[in-house]
């Protein structure tokens, strides 16, 4: 991979280091507290690994502690800052397809009995309702949030709501097609 490219976890950690210098454990705490694993996949043990990769690319710099007992603190470099800006621009403007499991499920609908398929879709709808409630709870717990983060919740909630609407419509439509056995 080109050293200028960033994985999702590198991008996330770089942004947190850009806010203020932080050490590894502190980063883990921030990710936990802000529940950032809601937005992207980042392993529990991989923070130091990610920091190591960012350091190797020259995007963050580790400050050796003055005292032996204090932890290494990471701060962003100029190179890191411009990488962060570029990657943020790229993320906002480019569309990256995500494949929902619903798509292949729909393709293979005919392998199921009608009632089986309808029931599975109804279960998906129930899961979405649970997910919506869970996300709303997180939205409340996380207050106060800056505008940009608050709007992310609006985005995710909106996507779930539109999927729920689609399932409701689809259930109603497919129920009226007895020949789709």
């Amino acid at each position: 991979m080109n050293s200028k490219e960033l994985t999702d976890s590198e991008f996330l950690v770089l942004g947190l280091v850009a806010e203020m210098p932080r050490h590894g454990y502190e980063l883990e705490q921030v990710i936990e507290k802000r529940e950032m694993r809601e937005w992207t996949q980042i392993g529990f043990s991989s923070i130091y690994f990610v920091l190591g990769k960012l350091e190797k690319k020259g995007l963050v710099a580790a400050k050796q502690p003055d005292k032996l007992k204090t932890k290494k603190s990471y701060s962003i470099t100029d190179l890191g800052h411009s990488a962060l800006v570029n990657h943020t621009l790229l993320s906002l403007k480019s569309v990256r397809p995500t494949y929902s499991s619903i798509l292949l499920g729909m393709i293979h609908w005919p392998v199921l009995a009608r009632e089986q398929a309808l029931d599975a879709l109804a279960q998906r709808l129930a899961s979405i309702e649970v997910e919506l409630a869970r996300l709303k709870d997180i939205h409340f717990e996380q207050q106060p949030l800056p505008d940009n983060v608050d709007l992310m919740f609006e985005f995710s909630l909106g996507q779930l709501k539109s999927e729920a609407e689609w399932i409701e419509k689809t259930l109603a439509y497919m129920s009226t097609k007895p020949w789709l056995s």
Partner: protein
Amino acid sequence: MNTEEFYARMKEMYQPTNKHFSVIEMPEMTYMAIDGEGDPDCEAFSHAVKWLYSLVFFMRPVVKKKIGKNFAEPPLECMFWADDIEDFVSGNKAKWRWRAMIVIIPELSPNDLFLECIDKTSEKLGAAPESLRIEQIDEGKCVQIMHIGEYSNIQKLCGKLYNEYLPENNLKPTGFYHEIYLNDPNRVSPKNRKVVIRQPVSAC
């Protein structure tokens, strides 16, 4: 003060210069407020702050709809005082009293909206703090300044205010010492944190 006047004066009230102390004539403002005592670095204070932000969370959609794109997230404000001024001056925070508060615009916050938001918040956080209320505060003539940097340096600036600026200008403090936190310290580096320091004053 109505919404229009509030927005027209917002910069003057919430963005004073950090170069020098300046004098401002504060209008009467409406706040949601919760009182408490003891070191603000305690559970009761964080709970009060969580309550205020939760109320704002439930009020926001209604308020946003009414004022549209001009809507600005109101910051957390806090007044501090002590029964014995010595405890205040010496920083004996265990003896301090505090009032955590968030400004609301009176005409946008009819009482039933406030009560409705209290109910919604209670569902999540339990019973409301006893002192939670809407309060009109008229600070009148104030001296204020923007502090930028680590919160621990605020005390030094206060020293300048009380020991130099006020006596030199024949002013004395008349109301509660007031801080307005413009950043979330969890997201903004210590060197960039902004706090408005405000002190109501009158002539000596």
